[in-house]
């Protein structure tokens, strides 16, 4: 069970990574870097596009008690090809508020996680980037240190902290700050806390690598032109770190939407998230087409706005060049 659970999580992350890659892929395409780009293109094709097409195909089929448990899209009978596209899965998803709520809950959880990670991660990344070079590596090591232990172990550690009988309640009780243990475990709050904890490094690292590149002379130029420090942060540092913010936010948001392990281990059973829905469709209901459709909708939900934003930025640059 645990193995499957992990592999599900992994495939989630792979899909999210794939989505991010495809973005880069689009950016590089018009410039046409030949051989070097062939490797990532091949990788994308093999590990993102092909699996995605598989899933897409399954999402348009019907459940069947068979192995694999769905009806093939294309059948051959009496020397003719029959293609049976089944849109039922999608109409079902859009018709049943359960799915809508699950998507909404996941998106909201991911959005709040991203926002909190950004609010905590930005100052941390900024401080590390501004630290003297000798100290920087040590500080970065501290950010990455948690990766040295298994993710699950760290989530269990949080369970130990947040539990009714856990460390935090013990501490607060012994300090006499509370009379009865707080019910922290299995709440939205506990999910939120652990999500932020788990994803924070993914926000800090891209932000750091962006902020460390910031040319100090730009800040000097801003000051020279009469700009006070806090204002030059807002008008120079912040806009220039936009790509870092976007990269960090995507690295957090995309996998957070499909997060399954954390809500499963520290969350409430009532609040259904899309990762859980997927799990249930796939393993409990053995409904692969439905699970595939849920996935397709999620990918569309993530990919469409990203591609749109990217296109818009490209257009505005091209417009400036034409002038």
């Amino acid at each position, binding site marked *: 069970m645990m193995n499957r659970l992990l592999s599900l999580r992994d495939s989630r992350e792979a899909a999210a990574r794939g989505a991010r890659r495809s973005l880069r892929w689009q950016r590089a395409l018009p410039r046409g870097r030949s051989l070097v780009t062939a490797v990532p293109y091949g990788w994308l094709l093999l590990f993102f596009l092909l699996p995605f097409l598989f899933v897409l195909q399954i999402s348009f089929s019907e459940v069947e008690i068979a192995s694999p448990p769905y009806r093939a899209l294309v059948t051959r009978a009496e020397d003719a090809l029959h293609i049976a596209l089944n849109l039922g899965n999608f109409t079902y998803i859009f018709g049943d508020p359960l799915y809508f709520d699950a998507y909404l809950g996941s998106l909201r959880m991911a959005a709040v996680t991203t926002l909190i990670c950004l609010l905590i991660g930005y100052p941390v990344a900024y401080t590390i980037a501004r630290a003297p070079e000798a100290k920087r590596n040590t500080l970065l090591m501290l950010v990455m240190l948690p990766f040295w232990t298994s993710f699950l172990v760290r989530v269990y550690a949080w369970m130990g902290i947040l539990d009714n009988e856990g460390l935090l309640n013990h501490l607060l009780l012994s300090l006499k700050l509370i009379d009865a243990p707080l019910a922290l475990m299995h709440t939205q709050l506990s999910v939120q806390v652990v999500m932020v904890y788990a994803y924070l490094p993914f926000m800090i690292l891209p932000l750091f690598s962006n902020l460390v590149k910031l*040319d100090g*002379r*730009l800040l*000097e*130029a*801003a*000051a*020279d*032109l*009469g*700009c*006070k420090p806090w*204002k030059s942060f807002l*008008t*120079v540092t912040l*806009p*220039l770190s*936009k790509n870092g913010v976007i990269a960090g936010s995507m690295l957090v948001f995309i996998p957070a939407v499909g997060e399954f392990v954390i809500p499963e281990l520290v969350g409430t059973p009532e609040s259904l998230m899309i990762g859980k829905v997927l799990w249930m469709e796939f393993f409990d209901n053995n409904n692969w087409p439905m699970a595939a459709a849920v996935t397709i909708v999620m990918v569309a939900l993530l990919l469409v706005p990203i591609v749109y934003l990217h296109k818009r930025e490209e257009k505005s*640059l091209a*417009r*400036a*060049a034409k*002038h």
Partner: protein
Amino acid sequence: MKSFETNLAYSAGAHNAKPYLQIVDVVKKFGDHTAVDHLNLSITKNEIFALLGSSGCGKSTLLRMLAGMETPTSGKIILDGEDITHLAPYERPINMMFQSYALFPHMSVAKNIAFGLKQDGLPRGEIDERVEGMLELVQMKKYAHRKPFQLSGGQQQRVALARSLAKRPKLLLLDEPLGALDKKLRQQTQLELVNLIEQVGVTCIMVTHDQEEAMTMAGRIGIMSEGQLLQVATPGEIYEHPNCRFTAEFIGETNLFGGHVIEDEPDFVRVQSTELPRPVRIGHGITGTLGMPVWLSLRPERVGVTRRQPVSHGNWAAGTVSDIAYLGGFSIFHVRLDTGKVVKASVPATRWREEAAPIWDEPVFVSWADNDAVVLTQ
């Protein structure tokens, strides 16, 4: 000591005009390294002043102290009667054009130029008007909406200049303004830049380590070495009458001979150098004593090359051509004297109309006039 007298006259002249910027005994230390060492300088209004010196002599540090990005360890900086030594950069009426331009990459050309004006809280209409004016001045109107990375080096440089001029600063600082341009474009831009600065009528200090650039652009030049100003004068004055060996060697090419005074009369002196066969006669007196060590600086273009032995006085020496650098309009002859010293002579091509130019290893004579050699006492 003609050179000293003229220098004194010069600095007296500069003091008569009311100083606009005064740098008073400024010292800047980084740890135990002194980057700027008890430096004094006065600049008059609307002057273009160039700081010239070798790498690491403290030019940028001085400029950064003026801009407020470094604080002097001691000393004072006074601009237009106001002590600005401890003002923050954003409080100073001074703008700087950075060596790397430091244009904001996320802003269009127009926004870059408007940036400083916005900080002053000017009304929008006026900002637009001034930006428009600056764009016109630097001929970048067509590119107003481009981002810096969509511009060529020369265009970026013009935007950087426009940005630093837009606020009409009391003092404009240029740190190697043309450093990022290639030589050809640089020469084109030098006069263009001077014209722009004069058109706006702004007082300007520029840093460069290109002496040609300094001489082309500036009204006065300050030669800096190891954090100190060695000489401050007009380009012509510095070239013709350097006040020390460093300046003489730093500005242009020169031949230096070490020696000492053997005859000291009111209207002439004789200097004996071990590097020359006979004493050199200088056609004016110097303030010094008999026997004092001095150096003679002799510019290559002052040295004549002949096949026949020069007549009369002692300002000549015999040698052989050891090297010839052909430079088109003129050639540099390296003549090795019998003493072993190599003298460089820059001879215009027109000199060889009647006779053929000397060739390698040919015995020749070098000679110069009474007033051609400059006596340096330090």
